[in-house]
C-alpha cells in the first residue's frame, strides 16, 4: 500500500514532531523519577514542579501532534479528496511547534501559569486555540470538498470540536477554588475521558478497516457503540472527581455508578479489535501496526479500565485519592490509550509515506521496541500501584506523616525508575528503527 493522495504526506512531519517531543517527555520523566530518589538532583535549577509541568505538557502537545498527523493521513482516504490546504497544515504545524517549544523553554525560566496541566501562559493558551481552530477549519473544508462522508471522519471531527470547546474552560479562573476545580475538570476530564476517546476510537476504526479489510459498515457500527458508551458513562462519570473537593455529596452516588461502567467503552474496543481480526480475509503485511493497534485496545483497557476502576468507588477513593495510585493509573491509561494509538497510526502510515512507499521493511526492531515499551510501562504502573497501596495504608489508615510515609516507599520509586530506564531503552530502539534503519533501507 502506498499513499493515494499527495496531501497525505503532510502527516509525516507531524509524526516526527510527535516523536521528538515524546523523547523530551521521557527525558523529563526520568528527571523527576530520579528526583523522587535523589531530591537534590538538578535542584534548584530545575525543581520538581517545573520538571513535572514540562513532563506533562510535553505529553499533551505530542499527543495532539499525533492526533493531527493521524487526521491528515486518514482524511484524504476517507473523504476521497485532497486536503483543502496543505499550506495551512504546514503553517499551523510550525505555529504549534514554535508555540509549544516556547512554552516549554519558558517553564524553565518560571514563565508559567499555575493550574495543574494548564500551566500555559495566557498568550500560549490563545495560540493553542488559534492553532486548533485552523486545523478544524482545514478539516471541515476537506470534508466539504471530499466526495464521501464517513462516520469515521464525523466522529473525528466531533472529537476535535470537543477538544477545542472544552479547552475554553481553561480561560475561566474564578477566585473560588471549588468553582475553579469544578470547571478545571471540564478541560481535563472531558478531554481524556471524553472527547479524546472519540478521536482514539475513530483512528482505531480506520486502522482496523485498513489492517483487516473488513467491511466499513461493521467497523462504523462498532465505532458508534464505543463512543455511545464513552459519553453515556464518561460525562456523568466526571462525578468521580467531585467526591472531596467541596462539591455536593450526591456526586458520590452518581460518580460511583457511572464511573464504574466507564470501563465499558474499553471492553468494547477490545471486543471490536478481536472481532475485526477474526473476520479478516487477508493478513496485512504490516504486523507492527497490528501490534500497536491491538495493543492500544488492550493496554488502555488495563490502564484506564482496570486501574481506573480500582480506585473510582468513593469507599476506596477516600483512602487512595491523591496518592501514587493516581499516578499509576495515569501512566498506563495515557500510554495505552493515547500514546499507543498515535504509535499505531505512525506505524501504519509512515511506511506508506516514505520514498520507497508502501514497502514493509523488517519490523523486528519495531516489534522489539513495542514489547519493551509496553512491558516497561505496565511495570511502571505496577510499581506505582505498590507505592500507592503503601501510601494509602500508612498515611490514610495509620495516620503516619507524609514524609515518614514517603521514606517507606523508596523501593517502589526505585523500581519505577528502573522500568523507566528500560522504557527509554525500548524507545531508543524505536527511534533508531524509525529514523536510521528504515530511512536507510527506504531510499
Amino acid at each position, binding site marked *: 500500500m502506498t499513499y493515494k493522495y499527495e496531501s497525505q504526506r503532510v502527516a509525516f512531519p507531524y509524526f516526527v514532531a510527535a516523536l521528538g517531543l515524546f523523547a523530551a517527555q521521557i527525558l523529563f520523566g526520568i528527571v523527576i523519577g530520579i528526583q523522587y530518589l535523589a531530591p537534590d538532583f538538578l535542584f534548584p535549577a530545575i525543581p520538581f514542579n517545573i520538571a513535572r509541568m514540562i513532563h506533562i505538557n510535553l505529553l499533551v502537545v505530542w499527543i495532539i501532534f499525533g492526533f493531527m498527523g493521524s487526521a491528515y493521513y486518514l482524511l484524504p482516504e476517507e473523504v476521497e479528496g485532497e486536503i483543502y490546504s496543505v499550506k495551512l497544515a504546514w503553517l499551523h504545524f510550525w505555529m504549534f511547534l514554535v508555540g509549544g517549544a516556547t512554552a516549554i523553554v519558558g517553564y524553565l525560566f518560571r514563565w508559567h501559569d*499555575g493550574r495543574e496541566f494548564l500551566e500555559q501562559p495566557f498568550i500560549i493558551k490563545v495560540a493553542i486555540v488559534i492553532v486548533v481552530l485552523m486545523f478544524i477549519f482545514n478539516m471541515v473544508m476537506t470534508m466539504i470538498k471530499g466526495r464521501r462522508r464517513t462516520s469515521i471522519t464525523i466522529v473525528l471531527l466531533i472529537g476535535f470540536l470537543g477538544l477545542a470547546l472544552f479547552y475554553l474552560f481553561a480561560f475561566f479562573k474564578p477566585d473560588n477554588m471549588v468553582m475553579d476545580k469544578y470547571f478545571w475538570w471540564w478541560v481535563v476530564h472531558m478531554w481524556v475521558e471524553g472527547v479524546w476517546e472519540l478521536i482514539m476510537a475513530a483512528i482505531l476504526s480506520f486502522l482496523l478497516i485498513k489492517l483487516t479489510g473488513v467491511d466499513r459498515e461493521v467497523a462504523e457500527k462498532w465505532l458508534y457503540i464505543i463512543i455511545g458508551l464513552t459519553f453515556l458513562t464518561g460525562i456523568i462519570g466526571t462525578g468521580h472527581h467531585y467526591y472531596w473537593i467541596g462539591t455536593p455529596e450526591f456526586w458520590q452516588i452518581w460518580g460511583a455508578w457511572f464511573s464504574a461502567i466507564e470501563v465499558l467503552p474499553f471492553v468494547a474496543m477490545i471486543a471490536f479489535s478481536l472481532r475485526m481480526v477474526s473476520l479478516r480475509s487477508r493478513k496485512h503485511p504490516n504486523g507492527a501496526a497490528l501490534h500497536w493497534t491491538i495493543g492500544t485496545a488492550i493496554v488502555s483497557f488495563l490502564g484506564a479500565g482496570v486501574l481506573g476502576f480500582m480506585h473510582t468507588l468513593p469507599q476506596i477513593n477516600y483512602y487512595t485519592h491523591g496518592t501514587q495510585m493516581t499516578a499509576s493509573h495515569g501512566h498506563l491509561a495515557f500510554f495505552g490509550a493515547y500514546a499507543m494509538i498515535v504509535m499505531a497510526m505512525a506505524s501504519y502510515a509512515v511506511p506508506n509515506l516514505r520514498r520507497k512507499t508502501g514497502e514493509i521493511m523488517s519490523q523486528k526492531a519495531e516489534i522489539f521496541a513495542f514489547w519493551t515499551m509496553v512491558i516497561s510501562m505496565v511495570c511502571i504502573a505496577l510499581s506505582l500501584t505498590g507505592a500507592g497501596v503503601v501510601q494509602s495504608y500508612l498515611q490514610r489508615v495509620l495516620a503516619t506523616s507524609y514524609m515518614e510515609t514517603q521514606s517507606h516507599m523508596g523501593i517502589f520509586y526505585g523500581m519505577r525508575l528502573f522500568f523507566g530506564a528500560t522504557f527509554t531503552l525500548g524507545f531508543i530502539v524505536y527511534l533508531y528503527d524509525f529514523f536510521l534503519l528504515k530511512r536507510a533501507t527506504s531510499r
Partner: protein
Amino acid sequence: MNKASARNMFIGATVIVSAIFLYMTVLSIKAMPARANTPQLTEEVAWGKKVWEKHACIDCHTLMGEGAYYAPELVNVIERRGEAYVRVVLETAAIQGWGTTRKMPQFDLSKKDIDSLVEFFKWMGKIETSNWPPNIEG
C-alpha cells in the same frame, strides 16, 4: 443492531446524560456558597490563590488531593501545623527555601504574599470536603 441505530443510540445517550450533568452542575453551583464559604472569600484569600498559582505550588503539593503527590497535602495544613509554623515555613522559603530532603525552592514571597497565602489556607481548611482527608496527616 445496525449502524443507524447505533448512531441514534449515541446521540440519544449523549443528549440525556448531558442534560442530567448540566442539571447537577446547576445544583453544585447553588451549593457552593455554603460548602465553600463564599462570604468569607476575602480579597486576601483571592490574592493568596494567585500567589499559589504564580509559583505552581500544585505541581509538587496536593490540594484537596489534587496535584503532584511530591509534597504534603495542604488543604488542612493550618489545622495540622498551626498558623505560626506555616508562617515560619513561608518566611524561610522566601529567603532560602525550606526542607532537608525534598526541598521547597526559594520563592520570592512578599509580606503581603505570605499573609494572603495563610488566609488562603485558612479559607481552604473550612471547605466542606465530605470528611476528606481521612485524618490530620492529609
